[in-house]
């Protein structure tokens, strides 16, 4: 079963995305920040990581850079709030620069999530 790690500090948002993915038949684990995400990724070896960018403490950029340093090949989806807001654009652009090919601007629909997950998994 495809295993997806969600890294998201907003608890309710995390629950919502978890349920969406579980309904699609994925196995889901969650982490609350970048550091925890890195530890979880090492422990469970997920097939895909879906990470928020803006988080207190170590954020999504820290997570992406940490994974790159480890030479990890786990596909990533970066998501950030504020569709077309300066900050969200900036965050998602930074993720792009770090090699993340799939991004999701919050708030997204279930269909947008499905498409992004399939694209990131190369399906």
């Amino acid at each position: 079963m495809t295993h997806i790690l969600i890294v998201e500090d907003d608890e309710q948002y995390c629950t919502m995305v978890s349920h969406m993915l579980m309904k699609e038949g994925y196995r889901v684990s969650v982490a609350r920040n970048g550091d925890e995400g890195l530890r979880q990724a090492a422990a469970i070896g997920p097939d895909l990581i879906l990470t928020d960018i803006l988080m207190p403490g170590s954020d999504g950029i820290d997570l992406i850079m940490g994974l790159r340093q480890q030479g990890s090949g786990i596909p990533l989806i970066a998501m950030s709030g504020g569709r077309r807001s300066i900050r969200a654009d900036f965050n998602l652009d930074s993720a792009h620069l770090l090699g993340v090919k799939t991004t999701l601007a919050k708030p997204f629909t279930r269909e947008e999530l499905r498409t992004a997950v399939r694209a990131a998994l190369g399906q």
Partner: protein
Amino acid sequence: MPTRAATREQYFNIVERVLFAHGIAEAEPALAEAFELGRRLVHLQATPDDIVSLQSEAVMMLGRQYPDLSLKRFSERINMPLLELTMAHGMAFRQQLERSYQEIVDRERATKLEALGTLSAGIAHDFNNIIGCIMGFAEMAGDEFPPDSLGRTFIEQINVACFRARDLVTHMLAYARKSPGEPVLLDVAEQIRDVLAILTPSLSTSVSVNFTAGDEPTYVKASPGQIHQIVMNLCINASHAMPDGGRIDIRIDRAAGEPGVPVGREGNVRLSIADTGCGMSQEVMAKAFDPFFTTKAPHGSGLGLSVTQGIVRQLGGEIVLTSRCVPPDTGTEFRIYLPVSEPESASIQDNAGETV
């Protein structure tokens, strides 16, 4: 008043030259100097009282130095330099007032926009998370209802509402980010659509807004914030004039102008904002653009229309007002004329810059 002695001496000299000139034509240079002195007195912070005492001192000095001066000559000429002086002083004083008023208004506007920008950027992230939760859970809740059930329909409506909220955040951010700014070449029609997206949801549901744009391009040189503020101010006023509901018709097209309106080299863009509200009496119309004049005391600042007029004139345009307050056919229309800028000419300049 600083440099008082020098001013007194200069004014006395002017008065002397006016009084003893052979004919009015010869007095002209001295009168022009009086006018110039009047303007300068504003910068020296002279008050009308200071001008009165300048005049009476000059009269006393005249009496001392020319005891034989004929009363006829005196009475014919003595007020001439004074008139120039007070007229110039009054005009310059008014200009100075308008300038400082405009500075206050600009500063206030910039502060407000900055606050809106900070607020929007600050809440956008959290707000989008919240909308995202509602959207996501609603979509999943929809799975629990059979297709074509009333429950499904309601869930779909929740999602439609979420899309509206999401668009509102986007527009708020766009609005805050765009203004204030340097004048650029922009399509007024497009700017109006942006404003209406933010404005329409905030108006009473009994007020309908109709927007029509002509076929010709409506480009002007302005900052988006300026256009936004013009449209916002006029539409808010229109909605206030219609507490029981009504219609706001916004129309944009190209037009030559009308009496009292300067025509841009390429013609004008005409923006008309008309409501079906209570209208204005002649007295109100006469004062409508005055700063601090309001019919909405204590809530109105009396700045909306005067700021709007200020922006329009800054852009080299003019604003015209017509209103009817006698039932049954009441309403107010503002027509704004802005000089057209052609996008073609701008792109030619850009290309030239690139190829050189």
